């Protein structure tokens, strides 16, 4: 209780110092959510498995399930607002939504305008392959063939660290890379966990299981600046969801992979 009071005071002081009246005016999002019992969340509708439109025209996905989970914990009804990756931050900064749960990555520019919760979803590029191929580190790739989509983040990052003993096959697009992996033309594939999940979904004969991470950039929930109480609440719910397995269930459902321990 005392901690909350102090935090509230700090939050108030920060609000006064940095933003003055206008910031302070919408620094009560949690209060409004509890009063109106509606949590407005910006979700993707064009980015499976995080968010896409289902057969009944309703958005479904990892982000939507996370939004529903948060709303339930807050005792509110979830109101899903479909956004694009370009307009999701403006939706939040103009107060049209309370949270962005839209596979949002953290970067310095975004941190200037919005706040971030703890990570809620894994998003990484890695090397994937069937269990029969042993590869735990970059050094293990020597002498193996690895398929990758040319010019992608994983291509650039992997090319920096591998030795020239690795036989990298670079394909024009994700389809080529996936086909090469599924047909066994390459032993391993470097791609995003989302792509690997999409392949696992179809249960092919060659399963792309994670070997090791190439670049990790997990997703965070975006909140308005100086929404101290809401941020605290969201982080508390996420922490609980991580321990009681409800977030792991969402990960298993949409990504077909366990939640990384360090998330």
């Amino acid at each position, binding site marked *: 209780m005392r901690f909350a009071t102090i935090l509230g005071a700090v939050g108030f002081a920060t609000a006064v110092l940095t933003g003055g009246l206008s910031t302070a005016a919408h620094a009560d999002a949690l209060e409004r959510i509890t009063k109106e019992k509606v949590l407005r969340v910006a979700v993707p509708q064009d980015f499976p498995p995080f968010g896409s439109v289902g057969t009944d025209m309703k958005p479904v996905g990892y982000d939507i399930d996370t939004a529903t989970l948060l709303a339930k914990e807050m005792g509110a009804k979830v109101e899903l607002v479909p956004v694009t990756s370009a307009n999701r931050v403006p939706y939040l900064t103009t107060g049209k939504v309370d949270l962005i749960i839209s596979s949002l990555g953290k970067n310095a520019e975004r941190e200037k305008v919005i706040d971030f919760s703890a990570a809620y979803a894994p998003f990484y590029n890695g090397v994937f392959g069937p269990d029969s191929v042993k590869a735990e580190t970059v050094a293990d790739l020597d002498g193996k063939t690895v398929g990758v989509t040319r010019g992608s983040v994983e291509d*650039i990052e992997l090319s920096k660290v591998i030795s020239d003993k690795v036989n990298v096959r670079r*394909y*024009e697009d994700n389809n*080529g890379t996936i086909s090469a992996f599924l047909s066994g033309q390459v032993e391993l594939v470097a791609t995003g966990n989302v792509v690997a999940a999409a392949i696992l979904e179809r249960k092919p004969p060659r399963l792309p299981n994670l070997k090791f991470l190439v670049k990790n950039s997990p997703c965070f929930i975006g909140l308005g600046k100086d929404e101290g109480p809401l941020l605290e609440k969201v982080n508390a719910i996420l922490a609980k969801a991580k321990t009681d397995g409800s977030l792991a269930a969402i990960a298993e459902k949409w990504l077909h992979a366990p939640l990384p321990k360090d998330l």
Partner: protein
Amino acid sequence: MAYTFDFSSLWDYAPVLVHGVATTVGLTVAGTVLGVGIGIAGAAARSSGNRPLRIAVGAYVELIRNTPFLVQLFFIFFGLPSLGIRMPEWAAAILAMVINLGAYSTEIIRAGIDATPKGQVEAGASLGMTGPQIFRYIILGPAMGKIWPALSSQIVIVMLGSSVCSQIATEELSFAANFIQSRNFRPFEAYFLATALYLALAVGVRWLLARMGHRMFMKGAARA
């Protein structure tokens, strides 16, 4: 719309380009030699008296000439592994080019054979030449001479078509250009250079084939 060219950024990638040009040339040479070989055999089969053989070769020619090269390439590289037939991308590229040029050159060479007057064949037979001898010395030579320009064009088309092989990660010239522009974000320069190199290669191949054709067939054609 002023655009400032910056070719200096390509210099770092010179080894990639050299490798790309060498691969394109290698694919073309292998594809041409084997493809024209299949073409000659196919044309001989199509002009032979063996009806099942004629039909089989005809089916091959129609199948290849009426499907896209890219699909043929994907069939070999991504499809055949399902049957346990797996080959590296360069082998798949050469195989696709050989099969493709084989079908087209079968038709081209057959046209040349059809244009050989029947009387010449009869003249050969009356001199006591065997069937293979007649084909080799009387039919094939003048036939190749007649269709050499058309065959040369097809070889150039196949060489330019090898750019499609970049889709299965064959590291030829188009792959090199795609690779470079994905790294230095200078697509105009990369493709400008690739275009120039293809043009130079095509002109070079045409010149070489014209010289070869002149040496091999001109004297014979004059006599024919």
